[in-house]
């Protein structure tokens, strides 16, 4: 009787989970895999093969865009880690109890503001008639208005801005658990600041670093608004290609191929990151 009820409740609890994962995640992914292998030979007629992938490889614009998206995403992830780590350490370890919560909240505020508002803010700041250009002219550093939008540096700055909070939050929650006694022990045993950092702090923060890097990388590679609005028409970001194929050209076969490639690429990088650091998805990302 008791175990029957247990079984029934297990089935009832399992049902929404199974429906969700199967219908909204697994089958749709298989769906784009299927469409990516489909080649249109005539109206309503299809053959199957790797033709779409061959087309991708045969067109340098496509794979250059993917490579560009890839290395810029990796660059943004590294920058976000370098920029975010000191801030996370400050919040978790150095700030006083009271200001710690305030700083953490301050960190979270931009997180709740849409990407679009943030990108729009950068546009207002950086365009030719923008605040920065105006300030530089006022200070006499430049003679005429200068366009600071539509270049790679701006795109990278904007992307780091968009994702750095997703780096800081997991880092803070990991570093928060670190006992200060560990650091003192390190110093007492004669370790220099650098040694303590490398041998104690970094290994301790590793789950947070990995979680932050995974989320950051994935968000960057999959971002759409920031590269397009700050990089302009020539930003050549891979998600833009996907959008163009799907919505503008209505070429779903090519779009699905690009989608599979982007997903394959981000999964590969995330898997490599987890393997190299000996972490698992469940223990890093799910922790916060």
């Amino acid at each position, binding site marked *: 009787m008791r175990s029957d009820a247990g079984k029934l*409740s*297990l089935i009832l*609890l*399992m049902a*929404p*989970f199974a429906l*969700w*994962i199967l219908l*909204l*995640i697994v*089958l*749709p*992914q298989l*769906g*784009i895999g299927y469409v990516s292998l489909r080649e249109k030979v005539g109206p309503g007629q299809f053959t199957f093969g790797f033709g779409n992938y061959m087309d991708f490889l045969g067109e340098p614009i496509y794979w250059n865009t993917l490579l560009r998206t890839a290395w810029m995403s990796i660059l943004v992830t590294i920058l976000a880690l370098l920029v975010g780590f*000191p801030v996370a350490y400050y919040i978790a*370890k*150095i700030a006083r109890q009271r200001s710690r919560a305030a*700083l953490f*909240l301050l*960190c979270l*505020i931009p997180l*709740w*503001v*849409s990407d*679009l*508002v*943030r990108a*729009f*803010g950068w546009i*207002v*700041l950086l365009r030719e*008639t923008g*605040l920065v250009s*105006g300030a530089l002219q006022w200070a006499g550093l430049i003679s005429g208005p200068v366009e600071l939008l539509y270049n790679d540096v701006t795109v990278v700055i904007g992307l780091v*801005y968009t994702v750095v909070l997703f780096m800081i939050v997991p880092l803070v929650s990991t570093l928060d658990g670190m006992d*200060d006694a560990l*650091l*003192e022990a390190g110093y007492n045993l004669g370790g220099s600041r650098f040694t303590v950092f490398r041998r104690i702090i970094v290994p301790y923060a590793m789950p947070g670093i990995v979680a932050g890097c995974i*989320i950051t990388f*994935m*968000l960057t*590679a*999959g971002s*759409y*608004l920031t590269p397009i*609005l700050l990089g302009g028409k020539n930003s050549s970001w891979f*998600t833009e290609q*996907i959008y163009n194929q*799907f919505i503008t050209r209505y070429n779903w076969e090519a779009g699905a191929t690009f*989608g599979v490639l*982007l*997903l394959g690429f*981000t*999964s590969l990088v*995330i898997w490599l990151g987890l393997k190299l650091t000996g972490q*698992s*998805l*469940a223990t890093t*990302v799910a922790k916060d």
Partner: protein
Amino acid sequence: MAQANKSPFLTFVYRSYVTIFFLYLVAPLLAAGVFAFNDSLFPALPWQGFTLDWFFNDTEPKLGMFHDERLLRGLKNSVYIGVIVSALAVMAGTCNAFLFERKQFPFKNALYVLMVVPLVIPGVILGISLLVFASMIANGIDAATGVNVKWLRPGIPLIVLGQFSFLTTITSLVIAARLQKFDIALEEAALNLGASRSRVLTTVTLPFLFPALFSAFVVSFLVSFENFNTTLMLVGSDAPLTITMYDRVVKVGSTPVLNAVSVFLMIASGSLALLSVLIQRKKD
């Protein structure tokens, strides 16, 4: 304290760095905010004086956001989508939390990883895969029965499904974290005292979970509200606010009414987030 080892100079450098970082964080938000109040047709200097026209004025060319039909419709759609998808995601998330915290079943670890996976799939991919899958089903039904299933075509129902697909992971994790802290002895005590299972659930367990349920709802609502990537691929004729704003930026260019919407969004989402933090804190 770790701080004791630092020289005053290094501490100063460190402090300045953190200060500069926070300036970097607020700079674009401030820039977006300030020009909502500039009495000019462009969100740029020079400062022409303070005005609230971009919120409340009802005539062109300075049409305020509260009189702009399309923006208001976008806002309404966003709220509608946000409420539905958050309610669904909280319900599914609660089931998932009980499933993974309370039950034992085969392949539990593998399924747990599967539950986390939607968080690491780029939003654009979630969008196109659902678009493709829903169209395949709709085309199949159309070919077999001649019925055109409207809600499987781009539009609000698909946006809800698309956002639900990754929000459920977030709500599951938030609620599971709270359920983990629950002392199962409380439930056992209530059962021993003769309460039925459903009564225990509604009077003991769910009240304990309430702060997590509430903050999961708020988080999903905010994430849904600001979501762009997944929504972009699934949007039909009823566009939510982010898409409407994006259209405006691309087609019309930046106008101060967008600054006004930004201010409105910052205030609204800021107070919602704060409310959720306060409720969470009070109960802890």
